[in-house]
């Protein structure tokens, strides 16, 4: 079997596996909550955990294209939408945790937070920007928008991920090691993207000059 190509059955199985794996962090969190194992500050734990997985899944979904280019395994591409939607799913959980558990619908406190706390402002903006990407993730929406527009819209994900890293860095009291790790990975992914863009542009140029 050639690992670079998968038939439909294999792809379906792989997708089911990725789907279940992506649900694992939520399952573990729910199990911990069920066993009263979330520590002294459960709301903080849930907030941090869902935020962590939002960023992690965003970075994984951004890693799909460079990984495909490096490996030549084109089926990776078929997982990208699911990973992106899972990032959105955890972002929704993260936002709902803030809205319900942390602030308990205290709308004036939330409005103040969004206007006055820069890390909330940035995090909220990133969440809002994710919504149009999730809404236009279907094949039908992709066709309606047209490939070029769709691509342009979805390149917002780099801005969103950057905002996510800034959101994390600004809320940390002092130890920046984890936000910096996320930021480093994001910078690497961006660098790879530019590298391949330049390379394909150069290839196109050399073809057209033949």
């Amino acid at each position, binding site marked *: 079997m050639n690992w670079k190509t998968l038939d439909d059955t294999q792809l379906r199985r792989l997708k089911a596996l990725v789907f279940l794996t992506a649900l694992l962090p939520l399952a573990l969190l729910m199990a911990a909550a069920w066993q009263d194992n979330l*520590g*002294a*500050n459960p*709301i903080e734990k849930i907030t941090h955990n869902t935020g962590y997985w939002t960023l992690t899944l965003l970075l994984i979904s951004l890693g799909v294209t460079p990984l495909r280019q490096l490996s030549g395994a084109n089926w990776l591409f078929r997982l990208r939408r699911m990973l992106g939607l899972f990032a959105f799913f955890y972002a929704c959980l993260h936002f709902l945790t803030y809205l319900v*558990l942390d602030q308990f619908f205290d709308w004036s406190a939330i409005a103040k937070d969004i206007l*006055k*706390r820069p890390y909330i402002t940035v995090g909220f903006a990133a969440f809002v920007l994710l919504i149009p990407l999730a809404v236009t993730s279907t094949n039908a929406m992709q066709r309606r928008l047209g490939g070029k527009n769709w691509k342009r819209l979805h390149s917002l994900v780099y801005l969103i991920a950057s905002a996510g890293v800034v959101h994390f860095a600004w809320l940390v*009291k*002092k*130890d920046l090691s984890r936000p910096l790790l996320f930021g480093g990975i994001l910078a690497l992914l961006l660098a790879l993207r530019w590298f391949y863009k330049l390379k394909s542009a150069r290839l196109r140029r050399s073809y057209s000059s033949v």
Partner: protein
Amino acid sequence: EKLASSLSEAYGLTDKLTPLEDVSQYNNFYEFDTSKEGPAKMAGRLKTRPWTVSVEGEVRKPKQFAIEDLLKLAPMQERIYRLRCVEAWSMVIPWLGYPLAELLKQVEPTSDARYVEFVSLQDPEQLPGQRRAVLEWPYREGLRIDEAMHPLALLTFGLYGEVLPNQNGAPVRMVVPWKYGFKSAKSIVKIRLLKQQPTTSWMQAGPNEYGFYANVNPEVDHPRWSQAKERRLGEFLKRPTLPFNGYAEQVAGLYAGMDLTKNF
């Protein structure tokens, strides 16, 4: 290890106590680790005997106190205090200790002693978090002399009837209940009386975010978050934060005429 004490009636509190498990498993003690659970896991490395505390500087009788002597220096009292962290969560803890004033009287501060600096232990072998320069080590905190002499400022050796768990600042720490938690230095090895206001580790780390006074104040926000409310651990809804953490009646007079937005 049990620690004998008598409950000081004047310092009882009707607030519900935070369970010992939460008090000892949810800690900010960057010398061990920057996570909340880390300090409890790493705390076994700290050796609290032998231990001496050196009291020096602007005093007539500088002295090194063995921890055994410090424990006997004044009657141990149990005091239930609110603890408000600058991160906007809070606990209620039954501490064991006696006023820092009892110790300071013994060394006879001179009239030049206007500030007190607390220096915590520095030893990366015992405190592995010090291998990273998260803060400038050793941890340094400070009080103005009148704050340090205030009867609420407690030199603390225990909680919940026992000696302090290492992760809570064993064998001896400060508890200054009207200030944010980081003002209460842990695992103290040196107390220095000074003419000038010392620069603390947190002031160095973020001069715009952490001032010398750090009095609990719902009116003065941290630049990156509100201090108007707090989550009392174990409660769902946030509760309003009280000026001076509810100790305004006792301590507000110390700051008469001061602009607390500038002296944050």
